[in-house]
């Protein structure tokens, strides 16, 4: 949720003349003020990044004291079918959660844009899952996904559907997690879309209506383009969520059945915490760091364009 704040800050950076008027530089004071933040950033962000890169390049052979350096860990990582599976799963999971959540969020935002009592009630109802810890949501969904007597099967069964092994069937399990994620996140994105919609001036719709634009045209030509910055922001938040949240995997599937729900961060956790393969865990961390950096460069560009479009 932080990225838009920062980026639009960077790109809309303008020097306040007053800073100049005050004239003096405050090197020491400023350093002292940012020092506490900087200390923790160094210890828990920069140092670990350096360390994980180093560790990924260090190959320790069991039973030998000599340590080699090289790309061996990466070779092992890329040769690991589970890692490949985790990357593929993560891509499917990304597309599968982001597209429906954003679509749904947009639809809900358009539907609930006006602040009537009834709409406020509906907004509250759909917003509750956002505040639920992902672990708690996963605990609830243990029962939702329970075959036969669970919430889904029980009620779908009454409508005549067959029972499904939501978490046990390798072809279905990832989609079950996707469903849970959409349920949990859509309303969070809706919030931003509602704010975005309310920021669009009414005269624009009035003008479009006067020119005979239909509701669909007004949506496509006025609403969507003006929601550009919001959309870009929500997209970045959603992407970060996809990479950093695996609590439901831990509670519901542990990556299974047969790796069908393993995501990259869970794979890292497994390697480090269960297999004690720090080399592989480090290599996988470096791979996702690289992906995140690439992603943020890309998204900053998009955001920049979006922000300029708005201006």
């Amino acid at each position, binding site marked *: *949720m*932080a990225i*838009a*704040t*920062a980026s639009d800050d960077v790109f809309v950076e303008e020097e*306040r003349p*007053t800073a100049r008027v005050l004239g003096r*530089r*405050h*090197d020491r*004071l*400023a*350093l002292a*003020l*940012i020092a*506490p*933040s900087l200390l*923790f*950033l160094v210890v*828990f*962000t*920069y*140092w*670990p990044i350096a*360390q*994980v890169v180093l560790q990924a390049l260090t190959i320790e052979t069991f039973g030998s004291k000599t340590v080699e350096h090289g790309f061996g860990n990466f070779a092992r990582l890329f040769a690991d079918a589970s890692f490949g599976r985790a990357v593929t799963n993560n891509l499917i999971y990304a597309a599968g959660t982001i597209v429906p959540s954003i679509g749904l969020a947009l639809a809900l935002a358009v*539907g609930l844009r006006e602040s009537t009592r009834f709409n406020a009630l*509906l907004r*509250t*109802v*759909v917003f*509750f899952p956002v*505040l639920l*810890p*992902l672990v*708690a949501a996963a*605990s*609830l969904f243990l*029962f939702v996904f329970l075959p036969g*007597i669970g*919430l889904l*099967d*029980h009620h779908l069964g009454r409508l005549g559907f067959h029972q499904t092994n939501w978490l046990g069937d390798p072809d279905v399990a990832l989609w079950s997690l996707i469903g849970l994620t959409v349920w949990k996140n859509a*309303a*969070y994105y809706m*919030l*931003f879309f509602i704010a975005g919609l309310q920021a669009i001036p009414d005269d624009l719709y009035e003008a479009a209506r006067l020119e005979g634009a239909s509701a669909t045209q007004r949506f496509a030509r006025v609403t969507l383009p003006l929601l550009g910055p*919001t959309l870009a*922001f929500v997209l970045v938040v959603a992407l970060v969520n996809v990479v950093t949240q*695996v*609590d439901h995997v*831990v*509670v519901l599937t542990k990556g299974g059945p047969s790796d069908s729900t393993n995501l990259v961060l869970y794979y*890292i*956790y497994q390697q480090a915490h269960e297999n004690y393969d720090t080399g592989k865990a480090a290599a996988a*961390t470096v791979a996702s760091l690289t992906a*995140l*950096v690439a*992603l*943020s460069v890309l998204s900053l560009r998009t955001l920049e364009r979006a922000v300029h479009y708005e201006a």
Partner: protein
Amino acid sequence: MATAALSSRFDGLRFAGVAILSLVALAWSTPLLWMAIASFRPQSFGGLDMASLAPNFRPTLANYVEALDSADFAGLYLNTAIVCLGILAVQLVTITLAGYAFARLEFRGRTLFFYAFLLQLMLVPPILIVPNLVTITRLGLYDHLVAVMAPYFASAFGVFLMRQTFRTIPRDFEEAAAVEGAAWWQVVIHVLAPLARPGLVAFSIVSVVAHWNEFLWPLMVISSTENQTLTIGLASFTRGAESASQWGVIAAGTFLVAAPLLTAFALFQRQFVNSFLFSGVK
């Protein structure tokens, strides 16, 4: 005539829209609705009808009693509160100071430092759990609550939020205070911080919600039961209750974990929503 037809068609559309929205909201709320109902359902009620949403039973607190019995909820609440408030207390200091520096002071390397901070927004702590675990162990903090908090003491996000907030405050106030002979820290504490309250409140809500709900990192650095936070406690509690198919107990436990935030949201809805928006769109 034409307008009447048009307006009745419009009413029809409107009605359909409201109906669809209500259905979506109903479907959305079903899991939580089930949680509330199942948590009060007697256990002997039978497993087959467990998914029923009809409250056709005499409500009982048995599930809550059992949930509270099988996990040390008081300890879990306490640990989680310590973690959230501990993180927040340190964050409020670090972000206010750094936010002030970036908003008001001119200094060498400002842009460079700014970008150095920016990095943490993208390379978020959850990705760095493996090397951070090594650091925590070396610092001798493994299995201490401080280990859960430490990676979050600096918040690039908070620094930007405060910088942004400080920038919206006119300088006249500070200049008046400076003329009166106030030192910079008096200006920050007595003038800027009170004026920046909306920013601080917004950040606090977002921060507490995030850390109340956090799971993977505490799971990695906490090993003993008495240092567990709510999410960890819930996960192990769920495992136990699941193998015994005690769904009502799971519902009760989940409700206990989620209740504080859900209640806070119900009470301070506007403030919550504004905070989430403030944290993003500003």
